[in-house]
């Protein structure tokens, strides 16, 4: 029974989407319960798979309609679930479920919600199908489904500013990427005459890479990079994340770009086994560094809450990519850990943006302010998310970033290459810039003076708050118990990423790889030693002890001083100090912050601004040019 769970979880999402089309149009209750039910089923099913796959290390293979390989040739369409797939699948189902719950209230003011949930479940099915699939063409189909659904969902609030144009740009760039993927698939097929990932991997490893396969590989790589929105394919992502409803933005950054990352990991590590070549490592790390730096600097100059978060999404994907490109055990683990953390904290932050939009009706940083007094819980949740993404200990972002820095600097020492030392510096710098841009959001949305127009803001209802709280708690827990997360989630997944032989054998029958002359040992060992120390639990205990001590001493201090009084209205004593003038609305908005930085880097910012021109032709040009550079690089150096 349990080997049917992967296909059942995919099918339940698609089935749910069809059922909502049929039954969900009339009755609100049926629609909502169908949406929650069919997004909860995959969560349960995938969680059942944790025990056999992540803990016992099995690999599930499943041939649709029992079309098993005939005389060593895969003729059917297969699902293959190893720890890497399941790791990403867990992210997908968690995101889908929480986003569905959040949507119930958040979307309740829109109409045509049956279409929304249909597309929503379809998007989830597409991503889940992609990460569980063991078939190259099937992956393409799923990419198309998810692109289609995400375009429609981006345009869903078509009354909003720019959502239509964002959807159109997304569609154009997305279909260029899909066309590249399809061309790549077909070029690979022409070489090896099979579509099963396992068999392609085995055949390519024995036959070696020919120029045609490298060309196909480069196209596939660029295509999945388009889906992961790394630089230079990223501008559409910023538009789409900004204009889509927040629950959808969370899904985009939580799993859609993870799908692209998954595709890239699968391709470079397993199908083409190219990561042992230093040229491949260099290009991935360079792309990753560019992505994280450009993403974060663009975020610094944004003045829309969600657009800023979107650029951070891009930047954090850069971290993941850099770490994965290091091709060391610590690197892969750090990258996957960061992918997990990114899903948690970025989903959280997008939900916060959604909550702000729900109660105020705007996400413009220059129009908001002082919401902390109206929405205290959202503020705390936002601060947790912001500290996590900026990597302040003991939140989860710190743990994964710390692993990434160590991996990068160790790699530098190992290879004696100064380049990787620079990568470490860029990574640390980007982290500070991330903090800076979240300070900007904190100041201009939640703190400062209450902006006109925000007076009526209320805390969002409970059904929106609890998904946020759940993710916030997960953020803290994954930061506090990194050993647990590493042992049960990240290390199995990274082991699976590099265990090519096991993957091939599970799919094609034991010993298939050896018959073709593949050596059974894996290229990398997963034993890694950290060059530093970090024990969050000890730190937490200290923290609690100290905080308690401080509270007590403050309490004692109060006795000698009288209590801290609550502000009395209409007493000028409690007014903000304005140099003697009467209090008035004078809020330092988001775009007025960081003057010294912006002034010194003004040429860079101006250049970047003109690059993100908003014209769809330009974005298509960046996509094609980026692909061309990748193809050229791979053909020359691989």
């Amino acid at each position, binding site marked *: 029974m349990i080997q049917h769970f992967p296909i059942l979880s995919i099918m339940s999402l698609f089935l749910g989407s069809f059922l909502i089309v049929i039954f969900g149009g009339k009755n609100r209750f049926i629609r909502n319960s169908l949406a929650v039910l069919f997004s909860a089923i995959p969560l349960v099913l995938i969680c059942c798979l944790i025990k056999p796959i992540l803990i016992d290390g099995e690999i599930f293979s499943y041939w649709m309609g029992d079309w098993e390989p005939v005389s060593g040739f895969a003729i059917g369409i297969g699902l293959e679930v190893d720890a890497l797939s399941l790791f990403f699948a867990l992210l997908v189902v968690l995101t889908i479920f929480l986003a569905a719950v959040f949507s119930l209230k958040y979307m309740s003011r829109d109409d045509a919600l049956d279409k929304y949930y249909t597309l929503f479940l379809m998007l989830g099915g597409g991503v889940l199908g992609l990460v569980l699939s063991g078939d190259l063409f099937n992956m393409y189909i799923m990419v198309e489904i998810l692109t289609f659904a995400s375009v429609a969902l981006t345009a869903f609030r078509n009354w909003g500013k720019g959502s239509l144009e964002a959807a159109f740009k997304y569609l154009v760039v997305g279909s260029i990427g899909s066309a590249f993927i399809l061309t790549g698939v077909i070029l690979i097929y022409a070489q090896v005459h099979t579509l099963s990932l396992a068999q392609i991997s085995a055949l390519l490893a024995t036959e070696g890479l020919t120029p045609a396969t490298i060309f196909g590989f480069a196209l596939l790589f660029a295509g999945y990079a388009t889906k992961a929105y790394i630089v230079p394919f990223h501008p559409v992502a910023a538009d789409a994340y900004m204009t889509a409803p927040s629950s959808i933005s969370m899904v985009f950054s939580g799993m859609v770009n993870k799908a692209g990352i998954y595709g890239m990991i699968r391709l470079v590590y397993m199908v083409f086994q190219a990561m042992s070549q230093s040229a491949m490592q260099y290009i991935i790390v360079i792309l990753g560094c560019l992505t994280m730096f450009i993403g974060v600097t663009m975020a610094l100059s944004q003045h829309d809450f969600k657009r800023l978060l979107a650029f951070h999404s891009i930047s954090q994907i850069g971290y993941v990519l850099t770490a994965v490109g290091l091709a060391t055990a610590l690197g892969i683990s750090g990258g996957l850990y960061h992918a997990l953390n990114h899903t948690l904290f970025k989903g959280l932050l997008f939900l916060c943006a959604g909550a702000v939009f729900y109660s105020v009706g705007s996400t413009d940083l220059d129009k908001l302010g002082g919401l902390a007094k109206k929405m205290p819980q959202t503020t705390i949740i936002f601060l947790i998310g912001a500290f996590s993404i900026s990597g302040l200990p003991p939140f989860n972002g710190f743990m994964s970033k710390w692993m990434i820095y160590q991996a990068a600097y160790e790699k530098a020492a190992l290879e004696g290459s100064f380049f990787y030392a620079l990568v470490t510096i860029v990574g640390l710098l980007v982290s500070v810039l991330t903090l800076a841009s979240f300070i900007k959001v904190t100041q201009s949305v939640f703190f400062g003076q209450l902006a006109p127009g925000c007076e009526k803001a209320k805390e969002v209802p409970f059904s929106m708050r609890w998904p946020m709280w759940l993710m916030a708690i997960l953020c803290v827990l994954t930061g506090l118990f990194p050993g647990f997360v590493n042992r049960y989630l990240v290390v199995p997944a990274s082991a699976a990423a590099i265990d090519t032989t096991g993957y091939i054998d599970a799919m094609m029958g034991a010993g298939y790889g050896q018959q073709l002359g593949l050596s059974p040992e894996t290229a990398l060992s997963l034993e890694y030693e950290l060059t530093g120390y970090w024990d969050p639990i000890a730190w937490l205990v200290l923290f609690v002890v100290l905080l308690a001590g401080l509270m007590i001493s403050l309490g004692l201090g109060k006795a000698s001083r009288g209590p801290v009084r609550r502000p009395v209205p209409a007493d*000028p004593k409690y007014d903000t100090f304005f140099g003697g003038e009467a209090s008035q609305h004078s809020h330092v908005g988001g775009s007025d912050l960081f003057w010294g930085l912006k002034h010194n880097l003004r040429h860079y910012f101006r250049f970047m601004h003109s690059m993100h021109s908003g014209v769809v032709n330009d974005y298509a040009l960046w996509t094609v040019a980026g692909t061309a550079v990748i193809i050229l690089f791979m053909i020359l150096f691989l």
Partner: protein
Amino acid sequence: MFKKIIDNSMAKSPWIYHINTGSCNGCDIELVSVITPRYDAERMGFKLTGTPRHADIVVVSGPVTSQSKERLVRTLAQVPEPRVIVSLGSCPRPCNVFKGSYSVEGPLDKFCEVDVSVAGCTPKPEAIIDGLALAAQILKEKRRQK
């Protein structure tokens, strides 16, 4: 003991916030000269602060003009207790030569209780330091009485 340390510290670390309510700038210059190397009021812990929230001693110079009255009252209210108000020069209390002017609302006593008054037009720095030292002692007394 804790209380006693705090009481004693009150007199030894008075931070000053300076309000100009229409002064001719003479007293202000003299106040600044108090913290220069020659007179060095910092040796007694005096320090000029930038905001009334940090202040212990508020130094007011100039007759209270109608433009500055409202600002003066508001700023004085924003100083945390215990606080001491010092009038600097001849203007704030008797209004000096500006008395009777249509735009002078003074004297300062109308708006708050003045603890120390340093007279002179302008007062010598030595006199200002003397007044501030007295103010510091009054601060300690106020704290003790509370």
